[in-house]
């Protein structure tokens, strides 16, 4: 099953490589991994998307907790939660394509954030499935670049991952 794990980690150099190294050394899947400092600059927040059987995910959580720099973590899959991913897509748009791309972007509640004589950059935020669907919808056009942030997650309601 797919799991999305939120992690608070000491914002030390090399922290990210400890997580990445753990996953490669133990052969766990990483679908995506995002990281950035939080409002408290000594802490980084990571969101990790992985998949595996219950036993494997149990080990993943234990192994992550065992990393000395990990302060706290939470398997968001166990809670009601929100997932968001951001994407930027650069497209080659001929004169005839512009209207259709604009229309699709609106339908997906995206924004065109850069325009040149021959290209658009579209920004879109949502869960991963929505981003996939947008890329699918863009198939008739010439996609030059896709940049995705990887998933970020947060629990709904009172539940919070904090120290």
């Amino acid at each position: 099953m797919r799991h999305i794990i939120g992690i608070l980690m000491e914002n030390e150099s090399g922290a990210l490589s400890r997580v990445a190294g753990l996953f490669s050394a133990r052969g766990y899947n990483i679908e995506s991994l995002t990281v950035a400092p939080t409002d408290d600059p000594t802490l980084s927040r990571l969101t990790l998307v992985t998949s595996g059987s219950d036993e494997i995910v149990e080990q993943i959580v234990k192994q992550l907790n065992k990393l000395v720099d990990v302060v706290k973590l939470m398997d968001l899959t166990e809670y009601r939660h929100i997932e968001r991913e951001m994407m930027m897509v650069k497209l080659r748009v001929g004169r005839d394509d512009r209207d259709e791309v604009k229309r699709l972007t609106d339908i997906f509640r995206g924004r065109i954030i850069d325009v040149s004589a021959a290209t658009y950059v579209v920004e879109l935020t949502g869960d991963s499935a929505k981003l996939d669907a947008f890329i699918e919808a863009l198939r008739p056009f010439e996609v030059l670049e896709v940049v995705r942030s990887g998933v970020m997650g947060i629990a709904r309601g009172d539940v919070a991952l904090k120290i």
Partner: protein
Amino acid sequence: MRLSGGVRAPTLTTFTVAGDQTVELTGAEIFVRCLQEEGVDLIFGYPGGAVLHIYDALYKQDKVAHILVRHEQGAIHAAEGYAKSTDKPGVALVTSGPGATNAITGIADAYMDSVPLVVFTGQVPTHLIGNDAFQEVDTVGITRPCVKHNFLVKNVKELATVIKKAFYVATSGRPGPVVVDIPKDVTAHKAEFSYPKTIRMRSYNPTIKGHSGQIRKAIDLILTARQPIIYTGGGVILGRASKSLTDFTRLLGYPITNTLMGLGGYPATDKLNVGMLGMHGTYEANMAMHHADLVIAIGARFDDRVTGNIEKFCPYARIVHVDVDPSSISKNVKVDVPIVGQVDNVLKAMIKEIKADPRKPDAEALKAWWKQINEWRAMDCLKYDRESKLIKPQHVIESLWKATKGDAFVTSDVGQHQMWAAQFYRFDKPNRWINSGGLGTMGFGLPAAMGVQLAHPGATVACITGEASIQMCIQELSTCLQYQLPIKVVNLNNRYMGMVRQWQEFFYQGRYAMSYMDALPDFVMLAEAYGHVGMRIENPGDVEGALKEALKLKDRLVFMDFITDQSENVYPMIPAGAGQNEMILV
């Protein structure tokens, strides 16, 4: 034993000037002061460019002795031997680049066996890091997968705190090696020195006490079991819990088995002990595990050498598992009652509960269970040919056990000799059996024995080895001379990488690819060349006498080269893929 070498300058003692202002110290001086504050009396190391400031600071004091090894791998194994035989962490110091890479095998070894070590590595100056500078390697990167934690100290102001953290992390929770990488400029820069008395890390809080609800659940299973077995491991030794384990086991009267790493946690000669379990464990231990209805696992990690085929492991048993590391629990085998905590703490709590509980173990069931176990015991699975014209390796170990009254510290290398040592030297005390289990590092035995001997100057320390293993760190014979370490090396010389040969005999139809040790040195001459006493023993009748003579030489290292039966195999054995009830007996 001589610990110091060379002339020493006066000790650096005063660090204050008029007005009681603290003078700033260099990183190198801070390093030395930190070791002193930690109560470190001995470190193992090898100098080089990146650590020269540190060596200079070491030279100017006399509280921390430094043992000069002949290869950095030896420094780490020696530190392991020191740590495994005492209740203190081992400390090593090596230079950057090749010094650090030579240390890696030892660090990985300590990681696998959870040995508390603090390893200091020199690093190129901070402004050169990342430049492919002379003798630069990414030590933090290389060691990351085989340390409990590591640090790169970028600022001299952090040095004391990082060292405090390193000792704390290495020795608490599930112990392990911690690497501290120190760039050369940091050892020259100055800062005010103060060593933190205590340290708190918000990201690191190992559990100590077991959950009381879990303990009660365990007691329910323990007091209602009909065919129980206690299975204990290195955690009992690491957690100094053998006294509590002994009380716990005797209170219940249940059979107990130890892993290779757990030997000595409960007296081997006691009748409740059914011996080691696993691939080369006893028939009775493995059969009892297979037929048990309750397995009480304590500080053991269900290693594949123990479980055999996991599908066939303990088919009838419920499992209680006490371990300080949650990731050891239900990793290989799903358990019914996990208890996270320090073994000693949990055992004491369990003993209290059991004593207060009106229920008692079912005496009838236990009697029948012991009857069954004693039938398995009667198979005498460790029997060997005592009439042989060739020296049997088992005979040598048994004789060593008798000659040392079972009270020596015994280190081992890796191979058949290691298994025979485990089977035939019966450890009644913890911290006496020092070997490499998890990584299985040939070359471990001799340097580990140095660490043990330095920690226990008057004690008998034997290193059981094979002609292949000993050559992997043979250079340490020179260290042994320098510090006059009277280790007794017992070389079970079968002219083969015996363990490899045995597998080739059993599983590759006797195609002995590269397992014959050709062109062996004359070990007697070799020992003498290093300044020690050498003996060659070729007849079974001479074994006892030679051991006695060697043990009499209290202040000399004696290298005993026993020419043993080449074709001997380690029995019994669970072949790969088989279950615990499918042992090959002789």
